[in-house]
C-alpha cells in the first residue's frame, strides 16, 4: 500500500470511531504530535507534584495531610500511566525525561505559579484539576488507544482531587473573615492562570483542523474553556466567593458566561520560561533525578547480583 492509501485507510478507521493501537500503521505527523502532547501531559503530572508537595508538611490537620499525600501520589501515578502510554509510540522514558530536564519539552504553564497559602491547595484542586478534567474527558474520546485508556483512568481519580479542593475552599469560605479572605485571595490569583491553561484562543491555535480530524484534539480550546467557566462560576457563587473578572456576565439567552479579555501576553511569557517559578520547578526536577540516581543504581546492582546467584545455584 502506498502512503496516500495508508493515510486514507487510517483516516477512515478513525472516522468510524475505531481506536489506533501501537502496532497499527500511523502517519509520522500523528506519531510526532502524540509524543509531543502526551509527554507534555506526563511532564505536567510530575511537575504538578511540586507546588502541592510544598504544603504536605504544613497541612492544617492529619485528615488534610493524608488527603494531600494521596493526591500527590496520584499525580505521580498519572505521570507513570502517561509515560508508559507515550512509550508505546517508540520513544523511551529516559529520553522523555531528558527532554524535560534540558528544557526541550514543555509542561503546563499553570505549575509555574507559586503556592503561597494553604488556600492555594484548595484552589488548585478545584480550579486546576477542574480545568484538567474538562480537557481530559474530551481527550478520553480521542483516537489513540493507549492515551484514551490512560485518560479514562486519570479522569476517575481526578474527580477526587477536584472535590477535595472545593471542600477546602468551602470550609475556608465558611470560616472566619480571615479564612474567607484567604480563599478569595487564592481564587483571585489562580482564576486567570486556570482559564489560560486550557490553551491559546482558537484564532491563535494553528493546525487544529488536521488534529481534529485525527482525533488528537477533540474540541477547541475556547469550547473547553467556556464549559469550564460555565460550570465553575456557579460553584464559586454557592460558597460566596467572587470570580475576579468584572466583565463576567451571564448571557441569559445562551446560559453561558461571557468573560473579560484574557492576558495572553502573560500566558506566552510563562510558557517561554519567565513565570514566577519556572527555574525553581526545573531545578527541583533535575535535582530529584540526580539525587535519586544512587537508588536506581543500587536496585540495578542488586538485581544483577540476584540473577548471577540464580545462575550459579
Amino acid at each position, binding site marked *: 500500500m502506498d502512503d496516500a492509501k495508508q493515510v486514507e485507510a487510517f483516516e477512515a478507521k478513525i472516522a468510524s470511531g475505531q481506536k489506533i493501537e501501537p502496532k497499527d500503521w500511523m502517519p509520522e505527523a500523528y506519531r510526532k504530535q502524540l509524543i509531543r502532547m502526551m509527554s507534555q501531559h506526563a511532564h505536567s503530572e510530575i511537575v504538578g507534584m511540586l507546588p502541592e508537595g510544598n504544603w504536605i508538611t504544613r497541612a492544617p490537620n492529619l485528615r488534610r495531610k493524608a488527603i494531600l499525600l494521596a493526591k500527590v501520589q496520584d499525580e505521580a501515578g498519572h505521570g507513570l500511566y502517561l509515560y508508559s502510554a507515550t512509550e508505546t509510540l517508540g520513544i523511551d522514558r529516559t529520553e522523555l525525561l531528558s527532554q524535560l530536564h534540558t528544557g526541550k519539552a514543555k509542561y503546563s504553564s499553570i505549575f509555574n505559579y507559586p503556592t503561597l497559602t494553604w488556600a492555594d491547595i484548595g484552589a488548585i484542586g478545584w480550579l486546576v484539576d477542574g480545568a484538567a478534567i474538562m480537557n481530559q474527558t474530551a481527550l478520553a474520546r480521542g483516537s489513540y488507544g493507549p492515551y484514551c485508556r490512560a485518560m479514562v483512568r486519570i479522569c476517575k481519580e481526578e474527580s477526587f482531587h477536584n472535590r477535595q479542593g472545593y471542600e477546602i475552599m468551602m470550609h475556608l469560605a465558611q470560616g472566619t473573615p480571615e479564612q474567607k479572605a484567604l480563599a478569595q485571595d487564592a481564587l483571585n490569583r489562580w482564576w486567570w492562570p486556570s482559564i489560560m491553561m486550557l490553551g491559546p484562543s482558537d484564532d491563535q491555535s494553528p493546525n487544529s483542523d488536521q488534529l481534529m480530524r485525527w482525533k488528537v484534539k477533540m474540541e477547541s480550546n475556547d469550547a473547553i474553556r467556556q464549559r469550564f467557566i460555565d460550570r465553575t462560576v456557579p460553584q464559586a457563587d454557592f460558597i460566596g466567593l467572587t470570580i475576579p473578572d468584572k466583565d463576567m456576565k451571564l448571557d441569559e439567552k445562551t446560559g453561558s458566561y461571557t468573560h473579560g479579555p484574557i492576558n495572553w501576553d502573560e500566558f506566552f511569557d510563562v510558557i517561554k520560561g519567565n513565570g514566577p517559578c519556572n527555574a525553581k520547578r526545573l531545578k527541583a526536577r533535575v535535582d530529584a533525578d540526580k539525587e535519586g540516581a544512587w537508588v*536506581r543504581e543500587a536496585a540495578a546492582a542488586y*538485581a544483577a547480583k540476584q540473577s548471577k546467584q540464580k545462575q550459579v545455584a
Partner: protein
Amino acid sequence: MTDSQWPVWEVFVQANPGISHKHVGNVHAVDAEMAIQNARDVYTRRSEGISIWVVPANAISASSPEDQGAFFEPSNDKPYRHPTFYKIPEGVKYL
C-alpha cells in the same frame, strides 16, 4: 554509571476472586519482585485488585494487525457455532 530505565513488565490485575486477570498497563522494574511492588502502587491504589501478575514485555508474542482480517477469517463464516443460528419452535422448553 549511566541511568537505565529498566525492562518493561506488563501488568495483569485480578479484581475479584473467580474472574480472570486483566491487562491494565505496564511498569519499569529491575526484577519481578520490584515490578509487582511498583504495579501495586501504580495500578491498585483504590482496591482495584486482589492479585497481580507481571510478565516481561519482551516475552509476549502478538498477532500482527496487518494480518487481522485473514487471521481471524476462519471463524467469521461459521455462524452455526452460535446458539442463535438455530431456530427452535416456540413452546419447546429448556433449549
